[in-house]
């Protein structure tokens, strides 16, 4: 049964990938990228990865498309056709594909319960989650507690990427500097999208909060919630103009969210050390170790959500502000 879905979805995935690479209009390529992301999320879902599919949905449907479009409107959306032979590259990647396909025959087949991946530490995680944390979502438990160091590292990478974008785009462009035109947003004149959009924004933010705080019990967590809330604010910026969105949530607040989220995550770790445990060992936070774990996970998930939401919005505003300058 899963094979029917897999054959359909994966074939569409390959066709879309080929079409993306062949498209000469970059705008078309970006639109096909959003189809690619939808297919990827459906694939993740049928392969039992509900959390990953939710992340792909939250990120791929809104944020990626918007950032790509902002960059396109700053650079130009036509790709110049390439002259010269391309059979060398085709030959190289063809041989590489055949090599990888040959290597896959050594891999355990799809869904084999005896595969080495499933023997190592994963069963221990599944078994101990109920004992240590007493909530059902094993993915959240691993993400925030068992492998908390990893997640702290990832949050710092998001933080660093956000700072990098602000450094690169924050400086004023070399030409046409003082021409701040009051560009009116294209969607402002359309009544229906505006009304429906205004109606949707609170629900998007509410759903983001639900994903944030329900992450221990169902698919969700800080990463997904941050992306969903950021998408809601981006929708506001599309409808009301970017300047109004910036007035609603100023840049300082966004940066504060990024820094504060990362600091909250690290701070919980340090507090754990001060209370006699190891770094990010939440059990020592309260007298009851299970409740301590739950409390620690709740706080650091909030930190992750803040950091991701702030970082994505800062990146969006950096691109959009550049757009209104040029």
């Amino acid at each position, binding site marked *: 049964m899963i094979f029917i879905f897999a054959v359909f979805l994966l074939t569409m995935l390959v066709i879309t990938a080929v079409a993306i690479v062949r498209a000469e209009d970059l705008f078309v390529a970006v639109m096909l990228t959003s189809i690619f992301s939808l297919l990827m999320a459906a694939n993740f879902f049928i392969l039992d990865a509900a959390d990953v599919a939710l992340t792909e949905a939250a990120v791929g449907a809104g944020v990626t498309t918007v950032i790509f479009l902002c960059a396109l409107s700053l650079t130009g959306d036509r790709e110049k056709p390439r002259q010269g032979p391309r059979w060398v*590259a085709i030959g190289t990647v063809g041989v590489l594909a055949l090599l990888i396909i040959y290597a896959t025959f050594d891999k355990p087949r799809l869904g084999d*319960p005896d595969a080495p991946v499933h023997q190592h530490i994963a069963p221990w995680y599944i078994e101990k989650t109920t004992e240590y944390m007493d909530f059902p979502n094993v993915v959240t438990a691993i993400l925030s507690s068992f492998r908390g160091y990893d997640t702290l590292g990832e949050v710092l990478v998001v933080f660093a990427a956000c700072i990098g*974008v602000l450094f690169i785009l924050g400086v004023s462009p070399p030409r046409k500097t003082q021409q701040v035109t009051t560009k009116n947003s294209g969607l402002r004149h359309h009544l229906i999208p505006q009304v429906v959009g205004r109606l949707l924004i609170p629900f998007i933010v509410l759903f983001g909060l639900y994903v944030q705080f329900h992450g221990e019990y169902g698919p969700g967590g800080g990463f997904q919630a941050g992306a969903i809330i950021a998408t809601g604010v981006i929708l506001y910026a599309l409808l009301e103009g970017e300047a109004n969105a910036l007035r609603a949530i100023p840049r300082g607040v966004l940066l504060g969210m990024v820094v504060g989220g990362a600091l909250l995550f690290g701070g919980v770790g340090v507090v754990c050390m001060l209370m006699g445990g190891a770094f990010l060992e939440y059990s020592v936070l309260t007298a009851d170790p299970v409740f301590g774990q739950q409390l620690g996970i709740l706080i650091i998930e909030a930190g992750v959500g803040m950091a991701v939401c702030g970082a994505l919005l800062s990146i969006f505003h950096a691109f959009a502000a550049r757009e209104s300058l040029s």
Partner: protein
Amino acid sequence: MNLLELLGYFNYWVFAIILTIGLYAIIIKTNLIKKLIGLSIFQSAVFLMYITMDKVEGGTAPIIQAGVEDQIFSNPLPQVLILTAIVVGVSTLALGLAMVVRISECYDTIEENEILDAD
């Protein structure tokens, strides 16, 4: 090797094909944004491989249901790795796009060969 077993490898083959499509775009396209799109396709292929590995036959997503005994769960560990990687992927993609925007402001083009000629 019967048909079903061959089909079981289908996910890995698609991973290989998408990976090489992304690599092809990175190698041969001179447009920098197209290169970044190729990079994100490449990245998605790696995600697909990890998620393919986590599937267990007859398993369900690793969220323990109350009152259901003897459930098989798919492997949660690759899911955790990929979940964080997706968000990190978007922010690094934005970093790359920011660099492309700066390059286009300085050189007025985002074609690689024209930039090399201008230098």
